[in-house]
């Protein structure tokens, strides 16, 4: 039970990465496919503004997945990362492009520059989901043996199952993004954008569904044990949930109920990931079960406590970010905050200089004595504290005077 708990965290992180960062990459794809002219620019701007406040947080889910995996299942992580180094490296390059294009967009002034930056984002949006999809394909089709780069450098991820899941990841990203962007367009009251993304969501949704169902044929031939796992028991049940959620999303988008469609689309993706997990459990890699791969007991306990404690802080924070974003507070023309309340002038904040300076010198001398002359650990701790207090005090003595008025 404890052995598998981190796996649940990893899979949950993977689902959140897929539905949140996936949508971010999908927005990049729609920037590429936005079309020309003013309408195209409007589509690109909308895709950018919707994602801007949340993209960084969305991408951290991948870091979460990586760190929990290597802490809880070190052997599994080492085997996967060494055999599948090429697609993982490609994904990393795509992530560099995505972040760089985000940073650069803040500085562009001409339309040509904007197009260049958006194209870089779009390329990233193709590479990263595809490469990560091929990684999952390689693992799911038993092509990663246990060991340091024990699998094939290329055929481990260039194979029918990997390419299928890579394509599915790209299509899913585009689909999720179109649904979310349509919902955001409703919020900012842009009817033409809403129509544009509704059409895209319907098209991408049908394409994603077709790839997913057609993919079962590919799995039947290329990864038969995975196929067998998927069509039996709990895996089959959640796959049916996925199909139903996917169909419901299409109906919701079609009837312009985008807000609800966000959640049903995310549910469809989550169910696919869960299906994969149920189909394979308890096997992680050929000859490696969850129990065999799991880290020692104490590490698992500490990790679970850390993740739960982290989650207690994280989820309210994420909730705040999303409620502010989805509530329209961060939209380009959102409602302004309250005006600033006025307060006393800076001069009032100045410490008495002479006394302060003497105290600073005393802290410095105490710090040197305790840190650099004494050798006990407790003395070092107090010494460092004295030095920090010294730095803060000197800063407080100098800055208010140096910045105030015309001194």
């Amino acid at each position: 039970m404890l052995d598998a708990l981190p796996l649940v965290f990893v899979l949950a992180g993977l689902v959140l990465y897929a539905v949140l960062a996936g949508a971010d990459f999908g927005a990049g794809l729609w920037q590429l496919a936005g079309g020309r002219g003013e309408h195209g620019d409007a589509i690109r701007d909308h895709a950018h503004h919707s994602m801007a406040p949340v993209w960084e947080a969305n991408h951290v889910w991948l870091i979460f997945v990586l760190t929990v995996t290597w802490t809880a299942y070190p052997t599994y992580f080492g085997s996967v990362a060494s055999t599948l180094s090429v697609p993982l490296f490609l994904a990393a390059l795509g992530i560099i492009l995505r972040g760089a294009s985000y940073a650069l967009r803040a500085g562009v002034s001409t339309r040509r520059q904007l197009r260049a930056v958006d194209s870089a984002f779009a390329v990233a949006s193709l590479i990263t989901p595809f490469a990560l999809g091929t990684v999952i394909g390689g693992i799911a089709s038993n092509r990663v043996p246990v060991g340091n780069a024990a699998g094939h450098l290329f055929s481990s991820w260039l194979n029918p199952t990997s390419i299928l899941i890579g394509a599915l990841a790209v299509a899913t990203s585009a689909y999720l993004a179109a649904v979310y962007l349509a919902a955001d367009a409703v919020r900012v009251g842009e009817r033409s954008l809403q129509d544009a993304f509704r059409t895209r969501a319907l098209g991408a949704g049908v394409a994603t569904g077709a790839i997913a169902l057609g993919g079962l044929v590919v799995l039947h031939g290329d990864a038969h044990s995975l196929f067998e796992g998927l069509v039996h028991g709990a895996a089959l049940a959640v796959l049916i949930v996925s199909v139903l959620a996917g169909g419901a999303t299409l109906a919701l988008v079609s009837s312009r109920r985008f807000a609800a469609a966000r959640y049903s689309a995310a549910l469809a993706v989550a169910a696919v990931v869960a299906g994969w997990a149920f189909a394979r459990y308890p096997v992680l890699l050929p000859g490696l079960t969850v129990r065999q791969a799991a880290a020692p007991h104490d590490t698992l306990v500490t990790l679970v406590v850390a993740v739960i404690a982290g989650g207690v802080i994280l989820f309210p924070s994420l909730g705040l970010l999303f409620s502010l974003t989805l509530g329209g507070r961060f939209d380009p023309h959102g409602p302004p905050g309250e005006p600033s309340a006025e307060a006393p002038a800076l001069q009032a904040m100045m410490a008495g200089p002479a006394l302060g300076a003497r105290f600073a010198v005393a802290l410095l001398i105490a710090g040197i004595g305790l840190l650099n002359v004494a050798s006990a650990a407790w003395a070092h701790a107090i010494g460092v504290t004295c030095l920090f207090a010294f730095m803060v005090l000197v800063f407080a003595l100098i800055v208010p005077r140096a910045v105030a008025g015309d001194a």
Partner: protein
Amino acid sequence: MNLLAAALAPVHQQYLLAARQMQALSFAVHIPLVCFGISFPLMVLFVEWLGQRTGDPVYRTLARRWSRIVVALFAVGVITGTILSFEMGLLWPNFTATFGSVFGLGFAIEGFSFFLEAIFIGIYIYGWDRLSPRAHLASGIPVVLTGFTGSLMVIAVNAWMNHPGGFHLRGGQVVDVNPLKALFGNSFLWSELIHMYIAGYMVTGFLVAGAYAFGRLRNSRPFTRYERVALVIPLTIACVAAPVQVLVGDWVAREVAIKQPVKLAAIEGLYKTTRGAPEHLLGWYTDGQVKYGIEIPHLLSLLAFHSWNATVKGLQTVPPSQRPPINVTRLSFQTMVGIGTLLALLGVIYLAVWVRRKQIPAWRWFDAAVVLAGPAATVALIAGWVTTEVGRQPWVVYRVMPTSAAVTGAGGIPVGYGTLVVTYVALAFAVAWILRRLARMPLDLPDGGGTAPATSPQAA
């Protein structure tokens, strides 16, 4: 379980050096960004707080301008940091596979820090004018705290690699793992953390101040009150931190002397175990001695153990295969100490001028020195990391796992390395471009120049 870790056996990797260089490049790109993550948000918040206290629009404009730099550099830091976490598996799968259960928790907690940092940076940046002033200021506080906890976690892992504990090895398997003890029960952690934390303030402080000192030197636009505030705050921080860093550095050196004697010997190029060991400035280590250097008798014993005649262990105490590359370690250490000393001197001059005249130095040479201090501090930062990381070689986990046993068996490392070099060169140009663009954007001050007196709230 016992059979399996052995399955990730060490392999011969032809390109081990390329793998190490690729990792070093990734760190060298990421670490200056970490400095901004550690210290810049606090500076921005301080300026915003001044603005709220005084109602002076100069502060608000400056905080807003700086916050755009924070977010641009954070975005780049997110990706360079992601690359680092990928490389843990791509380059060193056996390190992660063997010790992930010992050190991995540090990165998991760091991941949460990173998460909260990303969330609240988003709220802070997009919350200007959208949140009440108090809420906006408050939304920046988690950014400051998580910048600290994130670096704490990463340094905890690095300190563990340098001074490992909290586990036992039995037949190539880790047993009796106590991750909390491994990460936080490590006396090596605290000196390293404080050293890095202060370095973060020095690098950011001097780099930011350098930009405004450069403007004053060039005289291309009037040096108004806005520019003065933007110069004084980071410069004061850096100038106070630089002398203190010398004291903290002394503490770190003594920790290294006790816990990693071979690293200390490499730092000096000391072959024979010596009583009252000398220190050589500059020079080149060859055939068991430092040639062409300036010898200062007893200095090494004095620095490492605060004693005139202390015995310092030499490189001869370990076989040649367990010695780090001597000259790289030596020269990077001397680079760090040399630059650090000059920066501390600059800081002392700044403080002395303040004590005597109650104003900041206005000499042209001082401005020129501040302009150079930013890049110099960055070089010292990287040189310091080279000292500790190369000085730890040939071990990835000090005296437990050699780096050659950690490396991946996958091919194509030179291709990956080359690609990363090209990508990071392009990224460097992109960052330079975006910072120039941000610097040229017009200020939204009421009179464009920020000469407004401090006490005219109506001007806002």
